[in-house]
């Protein structure tokens, strides 16, 4: 089914999507918001620039964006997949609990903040380009992978992983990170780490038609929470 977002506007467009029983292709998308919010089964393909809060609470559906996406994509996502053949804006995958977000280009500030795992759910974000500052802040679970395919420098901004207390961040880079918060420990990913993320890298390469060898050409740095409680001594009672 094809629909024109421009003609319908956000509200009617999202009504269409809620009613849809088959896959849907959205044309002429110029910032219409909340596309696929809470959607559970269908595949939604978007040609254009979807608006903020696309795929919020996504619950099993697949969203494919042929273009760039804006802010707050995949907010509190529970299951499903978002594929962006371009860049993503700020606050991508905030508090995401499950499912996958694959971005071909860059992502903005605050990517994957407070992602978490629960039972069999483990959220995954893979960004092909670079990201802004505060990547994986408060990370509580799940996996964030940043490939920096076009970057020579370490492909993330400042304050990466501050406050992380679960989950893992993998960053592909020939140079190690300059400085990280003391709440984060860093090491080169070993074979078992690479085995652990292999499935996602393969799927990512496949999704965007990239060579897995090229992706694996550079080493990955593994960022994990510092097990020593960094908040010890912060609070006192009387």
């Amino acid at each position, binding site marked *: 089914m094809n629909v024109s977002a421009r003609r319908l506007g956000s509200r009617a467009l999202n009504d269409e999507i809620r009613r849809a029983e088959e896959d849907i292709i959205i044309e002429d998308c110029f910032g219409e918001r909340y596309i696929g919010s809470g959607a559970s089964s269908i595949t939604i393909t978007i040609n254009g620039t979807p608006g903020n809060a696309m795929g919020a609470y996504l619950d099993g559906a697949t969203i494919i964006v042929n273009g760039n996406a804006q802010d707050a994509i995949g907010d509190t996502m529970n299951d499903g997949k978002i594929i962006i053949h371009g860049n993503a804006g700020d606050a991508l995958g905030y508090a995401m609990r499950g499912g996958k977000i694959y971005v071909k280009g860059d992502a903005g500030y605050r990517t994957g903040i407070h992602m978490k795992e629960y039972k069999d759910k483990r959220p995954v974000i893979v960004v092909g380009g670079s990201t802004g500052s505060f990547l994986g802040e408060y990370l509580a679970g799940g996996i964030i992978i940043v490939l920096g395919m076009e970057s020579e420098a370490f492909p993330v901004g400042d304050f990466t992983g*501050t*406050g992380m207390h679960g989950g893992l961040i993998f960053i592909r880079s020939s140079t190690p990170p300059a400085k990280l918060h003391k709440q984060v420990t860093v090491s080169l990913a070993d074979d078992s780490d690479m085995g652990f993320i292999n499935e996602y890298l393969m799927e990512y390469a496949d999704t965007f038609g990239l060579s897995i060898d090229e992706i694996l050409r550079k080493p990955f740095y593994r960022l994990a929470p510092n097990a020593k409680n960094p908040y010890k001594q912060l609070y006192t009672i009387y």
Partner: protein
Amino acid sequence: MAAFDIYPEYEIVRNNERCTNCRVCEKQCANGAHIFLTDKNRMAADDAKCVNCHRCVAMCPVRALKIVKTDHTFRENSYWTGKSIKEINRQAESGGVLLSSMGNPETYPVYFDRILLNASQVTNPSIDPLREPMETRVYLGSKPEKVVRDEKGRIKVDLPPHIMLSIPVMLSAMSYGSISYNAHESLARAAAEAGILYNTGEGGLHENLYNYGSNTIVQVASGRFGVHKKYLSSGAAIEIKMGQGAKPGIGGHLPGTKIVGDISKTRMIPEGSDAISPAPHHDIYSIEDLSQLIYSLKEATGYSKPIIVKIAAVHNVAAIASGIARSGADIIAIDGFRGGTGAAPTRIRDHVGIPIELALASVDNRLCDEGIRNRVSIVAGGGIRSSADVVKAIALGADCVYIGTAALIALGCHLCRSCHTGKCNWGIATQREDLMKRLNPDWGYKRLVNLLNAWKHEIMEMMGGMGINAIESLRGNRLMLRGVGLNEKELEILGIKHAGE
């Protein structure tokens, strides 16, 4: 005269079930309040000697002691209180001026406690200071009025002399002599560790502490004790003490009995000689004379250090501060009427000066109105008890605060307000070797650093709540404050709105 004897204010209560007659209390009490009755083989107490410093309570290994306020009372009278009657009796007996120490303890309004802070909701985000950058660094000093460029068009980056602090808190002036060497060493080491400054006070700088120079403010007071070229050059800033919140308009007097050993050497006066600080600087009888002292100090140190002028918060403090700002000072320190002291006439301490909150607000207003606020930094002191007071003072317009009493409490002071006796059981306000040893600088400085770190975290939490991540954005940001239970005039002076507005 026995008929007029005054019943002691505190009673020492001993639990004889617990007491093991170990006599620790007796050894610990420099006032001799505890006595061992050999004939009866048990401890006894002379309540009249107790100053309620809690030393015995803290040291008693079996928790057998507590100090209670006596319930012995005068006939009830809401005007002629027991306190008034006792004071009259004491003066009738001795003919003397009542002497007290530490800050004004009376029930004047505490404006800090009638001001509440703001926090962000919805329209802008609060910031999590544990994980996101939160800047508490402060620079103190004068700011140039105009940006100047060199012939290539680059900005000339020569700032007037300034000092840098990791948090907007400094340790206020307490002289070596009024407090012990160990207390001074604790202050110096804490300042160095915390990235802030402490202040020598007017007693000079002990030779062992010169290596903390970059964390030291050297003070020049009317007595000029221990002031010499090397002293002036060794600190990061020089403070001219014009006044003190605990005793505005009053000088100081350290009795000759305390001028012994290193104190004599540090103050550069003979042992046994009284150390008298005149009430005014006798080279300053007017504002232009202040300028002369400021510039003589700048000349002596090659214009390399900011000059602080410290004044007590008095009625026309705003006009005085404006005059000081126009006289070449880089920093003005204002000391409110709750500020502490090692000794002051009680009537002066309790009845002269004004609250720091009002003084600070009106000084900041005046300097802004005159367009000269950037010429000076403002340090507010005199009764800062917690990080909340710090945040409120900064939002009222201070660049940073001085803490004195709070720092001493961290070192063990229990505010018994008996500094003037020289028998401080906690080793702070004393020069008695045996008492002084009770304050070990190795843990004293750590306690103070702990306090400063805790306050830093709390300041960051409060800033984060307001959506502010640099302390300079809090300074003078009075919209972050609201008053509760204040009248129109008070709100007007503080420059804040009432809660609910």
